[in-house]
């Protein structure tokens, strides 16, 4: 035998899934929602997405190569996922330079400062998004009209999201039944014909994406289900108590970033708990904080903040909520 044989500790076999595949599945699962955005926001959706992905991947490459001096790992696709999700969280008429700042913050501050893939305590795309929201409140809160097959980028006609309409209206004391007339119907909300950030509008498409991820076992059901159930129940109670001062639970689920957040962003591996029980607490926390911000806070939308806030709790959840060890508590029968 001329070659040297290899010696390594067991196991000697390995599963087929790898990081790259998982990330590309996420991208694939986001495609339906992306198509919905292209239909309703046209060229803007394309430009925002392209700029965001290229910027995120590019910044990751530059930071790894020139600042950290390690081998760039952009091909694992995680930066592309961050870029895509950042784009999904922006209005489609946002100036390109703002996207660049958002990408730099998401990747540079949110991810690479902590050592890159898997090390970040906060969801990078949301760090980027919230940073922009607070820095550029004007640009971040004017959403273009959803019209099929638009071709120009910066559209003059902008309008508030359904959530903003409801929130503003309720704070002015207008009954919800009246406000409902000002927003698109449930079917439109379901397919995505509404004002909003690029990727949050198409409920149906997002659910299809979620089913893909669940079927491929990229994510587990615990986080999405616990978030959606909590929001449903919490807003349901408020609505039941006073249907004229609170929107109904279906409305809350379909609008804003709830589905996008619950399926794609709260499930981000690095920033979510490791055990099912931890995931439940995390999901319920996100649900409650989302509703609290939506109903009582300054912002009409709270999912991004809720996820970031619960991200901060994840290390503590991981530390104190452990799987029940085999043989730990013997209940023999």
């Amino acid at each position: 035998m001329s070659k040297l044989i290899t010696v390594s500790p067991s196991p000697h076999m390995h599963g087929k899934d790898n990081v790259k595949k998982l990330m590309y599945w996420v991208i694939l699962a986001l495609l339906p929602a992306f198509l919905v955005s292209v239909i309703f926001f046209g060229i803007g959706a394309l430009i925002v997405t392209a700029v965001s992905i290229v910027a995120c991947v590019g910044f990751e490459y530059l930071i790894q190569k020139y600042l950290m001096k390690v081998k760039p790992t952009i091909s694992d696709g995680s930066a592309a996922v961050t870029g895509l999700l950042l784009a999904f969280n922006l209005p489609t008429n946002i100036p390109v330079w703002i996207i660049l700042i958002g990408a730099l913050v998401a990747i540079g501050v949110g991810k690479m400062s902590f050592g890159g893939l898997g090390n970040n305590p906060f969801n990078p795309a949301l760090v980027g998004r919230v940073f922009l929201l607070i820095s550029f409140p004007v640009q971040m809160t004017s959403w273009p009209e959803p019209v099929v097959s638009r071709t120009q980028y910066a559209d003059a006609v902008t309008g508030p999201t359904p959530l903003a309409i409801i929130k503003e209206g309720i704070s002015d004391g207008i009954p919800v039944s009246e406000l409902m007339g000002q927003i698109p119907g449930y079917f439109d909300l379901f397919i995505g014909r509404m004002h909003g950030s690029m990727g949050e509008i198409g409920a149906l498409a997002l659910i299809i994406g979620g089913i893909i991820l669940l079927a491929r076992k990229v994510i587990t059901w615990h986080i999405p289900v616990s978030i959606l159930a909590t929001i449903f129940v919490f807003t349901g109670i408020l609505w039941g108590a006073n249907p004229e001062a609170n929107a109904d639970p279906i409305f809350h689920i379909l609008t804003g970033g709830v589905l996008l957040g619950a399926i794609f962003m709260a499930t981000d591996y690095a920033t979510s708990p490791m055990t099912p029980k931890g995931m439940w607490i995390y999901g319920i926390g996100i649900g409650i904080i989302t509703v609290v911000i939506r109903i009582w806070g300054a912002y009409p939308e709270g999912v991004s903040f809720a996820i970031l806030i619960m991200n901060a709790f994840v290390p503590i959840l991981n530390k104190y909520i452990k799987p029940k060890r085999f043989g730990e508590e013997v209940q023999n029968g």
Partner: protein
Amino acid sequence: MSDVIVYSIVSLSLLGVLAALILYIIAQKFKVIEDPRIDLVEQELPGANCGGCAMPGCRAFAEQLVKADDISDLNCPVATNENMAAIAKILGKEIAEKEPLVAVVRCNGTPEFRPKTNHYDGASECSIAHSLYVGESGCPSGCLGLGDCVRVCNFDAIHMDEKTGLPVVIDDKCTACNACVVACPRDIIELRKKNKKDRKIFVSCINEEKGGVARKNCKVACIGCGRCVKECPFEAITLENNLAYIDPFKCRLCRKCAPVCPTNAILEINFPPRKEKKEKEGTPAGEK
């Protein structure tokens, strides 16, 4: 003088005195007997109570200083070096003057002397490879070259030589902290007396197998032939389990042993070149 001035003086002074008095009484009443050195140390500390030492307050830090056996890595960001020196004096904990030591790597199995027989593909830690098997060469004692010793050194005193695949100690940086000695799963590293001009002479092998076996796996292994033992005029060399060992405190650096070793297992480093003989084969590239 206006009223305000009078009131100020009266109230503030009274407050000061009151505070001092109450404190004094309470301190007397609730006295707890403690190691008096804690007070002394605390006085030396800046008293900024900033938490910079990662302790909750100067007193806690003082207690830790008094308790700790080794205070060299307890650090207060506010205190000056003089403060810390004074504290060390109070505690009598400065490291006693010892014979200076330095870490020495006792394996010279470079790839040319010790060919690879297989390829290791596990996690890059000597301790893991060691618990798995003999290593990439056939020598069960030889350096695994995965650098556990390098990683534990806090002083950048040890690095891997790319060519030889063996660790190299930089004598000037080494503080003889023993970290690498503990880290090496094969006990290859030894703290030896630091000689003048960093001169070293030692058996660079710890393989205790029989000569033939050892030599089969590594050309520069000590084969336990005992020639050096006979050669040494100071009885500094002992032979046990097929392995010669030079006692660093008995050795007088006479260099007589090195040339007689048939496998060149004895290394001499930082000596002037020998006149008659040409460069010896066994000197590792990194340590010439």
